[in-house]
């Protein structure tokens, strides 16, 4: 039989005592705490673990003790149920009631060296309860020593060790019981085996390790008040405990010793080696031996006014990533531009009475302005209507032609008799031949997503004039995807396994290839486009989907003559592409086929991040119907660009569709930004400003600080990993977690109290503030990809330049003691929730405008009441609560109850907002689990 344990594990006390008492042969094997994961069983895994002869595992200390003592029991002995019951009771009490409190106490007092663990009072009450039992019996197990005593001795012994700092005069029975046991060899020997004469500190490492993984002892079992399932001999302490511990302080996460050591090491290192960012100079070109990151965002079609969905799907996402890469000191180039060729522009030109070129110029400017407002930092934002585009596209074309990847064929196309033009796919609508969706466009069906050729549409109609187009034949060129399929497949396999592909990109690509690739038409009978140079086709242009991705290359060519160093250099360049999911096939199938076929060592896609759809409120963005926020609308709201950036990234539809909601938008601003992030930074800096003359104080790190730094490091690691893998939304949450920890850190240390105390207390407060201020600096760097202006703002308040803008792997004290900061002021402003209704109405589309107007008037009255009368709200809530309770006891219809509950929750949310609290944190307490009937 083998017992696996880490050294100094307090549970060893009782197990060794049981073993010695039973005289059972048992070898103890000491392992590292992390190795516990090799043992598998339901529940939180922890050490020690007993492995019996037959390979069975016992993993709770009490069951191990029971087993060992049972082995010793002779087989003739029939256990007396009464005696067993007494023993069982104490064993149960120990594990269910005593252990949770005792463990927390030991972790905080021995593990973290905190003087007051906050649990002492509860502990004393529990012990007094046990003490009483010993007044009538010599041992807990009855008249003789038994399992209960072994278990309780193991549990309580640490309290009796010298330097434990625990003493209470009123548990005399326990004290003498303990003394009695210690006089026995069995217990004495077991104790010294575990402590190895290190005294109380022997348990430190193990306690810290265990608490990192243990279900937070003070949170879950206690937070649920009025839990009706019984917990054994339990004084009503259970309920009191909930109130006593403040939510923040009790949830201190604990890191392992290794993590803490590493944290301190890098902290000390960092203060000597402060980072300096490298500024890249135009033209940015790949550097041998470095990470060269080429980032593209899908080229927005010039004719469409971008809405929030487009922005988050493409340019904004790529921007965050690009900024992050630069902070990581990667050699980064971010390219984008407008996609300008195609019939849409031609048509629009006619409508507005301008030339296509003029249209493009006009709208290009519009795009640029919007993106500038959103602070998208392209290295170059170009357009597809350039000479370089024609050159490169034709060059690729000729290469494809020479290598026999093109096929000629006659196409039937729809020509609108009225307009006398061949209708581009965009200008034909009809019934989808696959799914019968009535609004399928001529190139792709919105409903089922399948690509179609316009002539396949059933009942086609010309979008411009409404007439029924006729089918005409015309010669066209096709890119033979079928021939390229094997090369494509092996490239897909390689790229998707080596790079980071978002799941939807994988699925879409796989589905496409599985269906089998057919030759794709790459020419069109149009005027406005890149001309086809081949004899017999010179009156045609390239189909926009063939032509547009080549735009990436030509736009880069416009940026630098040495564009080929980026685009024909797959060995040294990593290409990251951002887009919405409907663009995926073109980037993972069609375009790679084009480049593979052209065979000129092109840099192909390495990683792809494709977003799902962003919906608007309960609807879809629609310019024609006026639904949603477009172009300049965002700027017009008066809400700063950074807040917009924040929210769009917060709801970035990474794994599934998400929706833009005004209420949510404003709520997040008020809660996450204002109350969490902004609050932390402001608090820390205000304190330094007011109490330390604006100078960063000296920092002498205690165990708790080291733990905190380690915690931040952990989160930082996650942040880096998330962003490297383009999980932008997760990365943002990591930053918010860090500021949350920051808040907890300040809250639990209570510097406002310390600063009024003695010298050592003041200096303690100084350390805390110093660390907090440095965290603020770290946050300013980490938030930079998301909210560049906020980042600048923080740094201005900290009186540092952006020179230090480097995302290091560890948290370091960039701000040294003595560094003078500026005047702190709040980073964010509260936005009134009523604005949400206004704005929703404004951008809600034509039909909604009327309804909104109606709602407006009623809302206005409601709002006023809500705003001014918190008390009234509270009355409402109480009334509603009564209603709900009544319905529940009457066992009313589920729907009715649900509806009333919803109303209640809504009222509560309003109250919360009115009080300035986070409306979402209301209902976690007091959620009762219904009693099983």
């Amino acid at each position, binding site marked *: 039989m083998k017992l696996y344990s880490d050294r100094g594990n307090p549970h060893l006390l009782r197990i060794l005592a049981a073993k010695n008492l039973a005289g059972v042969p048992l070898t103890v094997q000491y392992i590292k705490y992390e190795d516990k994961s090799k043992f598998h069983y339901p529940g939180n895994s922890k050490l020690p673990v007993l492995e019996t002869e037959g390979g*069975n595992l*016992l993993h709770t200390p*009490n069951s191990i003790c*029971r087993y060992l003592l*049972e082995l010793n029991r002779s087989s003739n002995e029939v256990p007396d149920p009464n005696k067993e019951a007494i023993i069982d009771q104490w064993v149960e009490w120990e594990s269910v009631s005593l252990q949770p409190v005792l463990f927390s106490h030991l972790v905080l007092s021995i593990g973290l060296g905190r003087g007051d663990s906050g649990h002492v009072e509860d502990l004393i009450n529990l012990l007094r309860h046990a003490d009483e039992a010993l007044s009538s019996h010599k041992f807990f197990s009855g008249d003789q020593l038994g399992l209960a005593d072994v278990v309780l001795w193991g549990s309580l012994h640490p309290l009796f060790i010298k330097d434990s700092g625990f003493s209470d005069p009123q548990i005399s029975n326990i004290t003498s019981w303990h003394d009695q046991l210690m006089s026995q060899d069995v217990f004495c020997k077991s104790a010294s085996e575990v402590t190895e004469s290190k005294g109380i500190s022997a348990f430190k490492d193990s306690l810290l390790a265990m608490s990192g993984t243990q279900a937070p002892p003070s949170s879950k079992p206690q937070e649920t008040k009025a*839990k009706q399932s*019984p917990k054994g*001999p339990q004084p*009503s302490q259970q309920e009191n405990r909930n109130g006593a511990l403040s939510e923040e302080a009790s949830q201190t996460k604990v890191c392992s010793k290794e993590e803490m050591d590493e944290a301190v090491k890098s902290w000390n290192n960092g203060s000597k080696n402060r980072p300096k960012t490298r500024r890249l100079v135009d033209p940015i070109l790949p550097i041998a031996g470095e990470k060269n990151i080429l980032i593209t965002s899908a080229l927005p079609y010039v004719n469409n006014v971008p809405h929030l969905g487009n922005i988050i799907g493409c340019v904004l996402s790529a921007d965050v990533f690009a900024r992050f890469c630069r902070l990581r000191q990667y050699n980064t180039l971010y390219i984008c531009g407008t996609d300008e060729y195609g019939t849409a522009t031609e048509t629009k030109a006619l409508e507005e009475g301008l030339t296509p070129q003029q249209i493009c110029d006009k709208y290009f400017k519009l795009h640029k302005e919007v993106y500038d407002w959103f602070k998208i930092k392209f290295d170059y934002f170009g357009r597809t209507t350039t000479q370089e585009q024609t050159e490169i596209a034709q060059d690729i074309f000729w290469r494809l032609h020479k290598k026999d990847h093109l096929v000629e064929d006659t196409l039937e196309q729809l020509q609108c008799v009225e307009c006398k033009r061949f209708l581009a796919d965009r200008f034909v609508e009809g019934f989808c031949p696959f799914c019968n969706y009535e609004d399928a466009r001529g190139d792709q069906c919105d409903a089922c997503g399948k690509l179609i050729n316009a002539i396949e549409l059933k009942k086609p109609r010309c979008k411009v004039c409404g007439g029924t187009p006729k089918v005409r034949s015309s010669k066209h060129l096709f890119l033979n995807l079928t021939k390229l399929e094997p090369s494509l497949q092996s490239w897909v396999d390689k790229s998707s396994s080596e790079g980071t592909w978002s799941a939807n990109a994988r699925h879409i690509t796989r589905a496409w290839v599985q269906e089998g690739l057919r030759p794709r038409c790459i020419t069109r009978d149009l005027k406005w486009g890149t001309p086809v140079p081949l004899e017999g086709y010179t009156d045609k242009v390239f189909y926009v989907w063939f032509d547009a991705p080549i735009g990436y290359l030509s736009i880069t060519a416009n940026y630098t003559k040495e564009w080929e160093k980026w685009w024909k250099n797959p060995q040294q360049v990593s290409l990251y592409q951002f887009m919405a999911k409907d663009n995926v096939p073109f980037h993972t199938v069609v375009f790679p086929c084009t480049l593979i076929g052209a065979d000129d060592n092109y840099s192909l896609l390495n990683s792809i991040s494709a977003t799902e759809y962003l919906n608007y409120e309960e609807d879809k963005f629609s310019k024609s119907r006026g639904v949603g926020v477009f172009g300049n609308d965002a700027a017009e709201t008066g809400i700063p660009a950074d807040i917009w950036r924040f929210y769009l990234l917060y709801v970035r539809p990474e794994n599934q569709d998400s929706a833009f909601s005004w209420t949510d938008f404003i709520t997040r601003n008020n809660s996450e930004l204002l109350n969490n992030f902004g609050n932390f930074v402001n608090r820390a800096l205000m304190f330094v400003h007011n109490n330390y003359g604006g100078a960063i104080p000296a920092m002498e790190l205690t165990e708790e600080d080291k733990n905190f730094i380690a915690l931040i490091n952990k989160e930082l690691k996650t942040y880096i990993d998330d962003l490297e893998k383009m999980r932008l939304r997760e990365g943002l949450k990591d930053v918010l977690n860090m500021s949350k920890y920051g808040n907890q850190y300040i809250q639990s240390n209570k510097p406002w109290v310390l600063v009024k105390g003695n010298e050592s207390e003041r200096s303690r407060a100084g350390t805390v503030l110093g660390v907090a201020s440095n965290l603020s600096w770290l946050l300013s760097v980490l938030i930079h990809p998301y909210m560049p202006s906020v980042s600048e703002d923080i740094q201005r308040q900290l009186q540092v330049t952006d020179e230090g803008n480097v995302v290091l792997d560890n948290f370091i004290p960039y701000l040294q003691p003595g560094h003078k900061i500026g005047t702190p002021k709040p980073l964010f402003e509260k936005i009134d929730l009523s604005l949400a209704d206004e704005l929703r109405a404004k951008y809600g589309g034509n039909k909604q405008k009327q309804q909104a107007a109606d709602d407006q008037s009623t809302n206005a009255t409601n709002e006023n009441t809500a705003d001014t009368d918190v008390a009234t709200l509270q009355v409402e809530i109480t009334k509603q609560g009564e209603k709900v309770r009544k319905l529940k006891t009457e066992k009313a219809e589920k729907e009715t109850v649900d509806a009333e509950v919803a109303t209640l929750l809504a009222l509560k949310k309003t109250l919360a907002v009115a009080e300035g609290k986070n409306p979402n944190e209301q209902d976690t307490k007091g959620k009762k689990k219904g009693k099983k009937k």
Partner: protein
Amino acid sequence: MAAVLCVNGCTEIENLLSFCEIPRDRIRVEEAEEFLSHKGPSLTLSSGQTVTGVQTVAAYLSTISKQKLLGSSALERAQVDQWLEYWQIQLESYLNDGTLIKGALRDLDKFLSRMVYLVSNQLSLADIMLYYALHPVMLELSIQEKEQLVNLSRWFNQVQYYPGVRQYLPEVSFLRNMLYS
């Protein structure tokens, strides 16, 4: 002399008592005047002492019943104990938190892929008590979820059909035909 049991609203103990079919001369049920929800079941032994604690009371009932519910070896007894501890300390807290319970169900499902009973090869107190504890959760699972937790469902179904276990609890239905895979 019979021991006196005060159930105090603990339905698991109530059901267990019926299942164990303990003769009247060994146990007598009396209810306290007031319903003290946090107190849990208690047992006044023939020696006069009173013990409390749901695990303790359950073990006592098992010992004096005809059924062999505590395993047939020292190891099995310890394993039953271990499950009861898991129930009281971890499962109870998970049951109140929707996010954690799913993880616990998955853990159990994995464990039950190679076991028919929680302890060794016979029905034990561990199976019974965990059945009672998980009953409300299982009742609420969708067909798809039950299918994903195929081993847990199999175990649960088997226990609920064991004569005397289910008592008046509603039956949780399981489909044999997999609809989703």
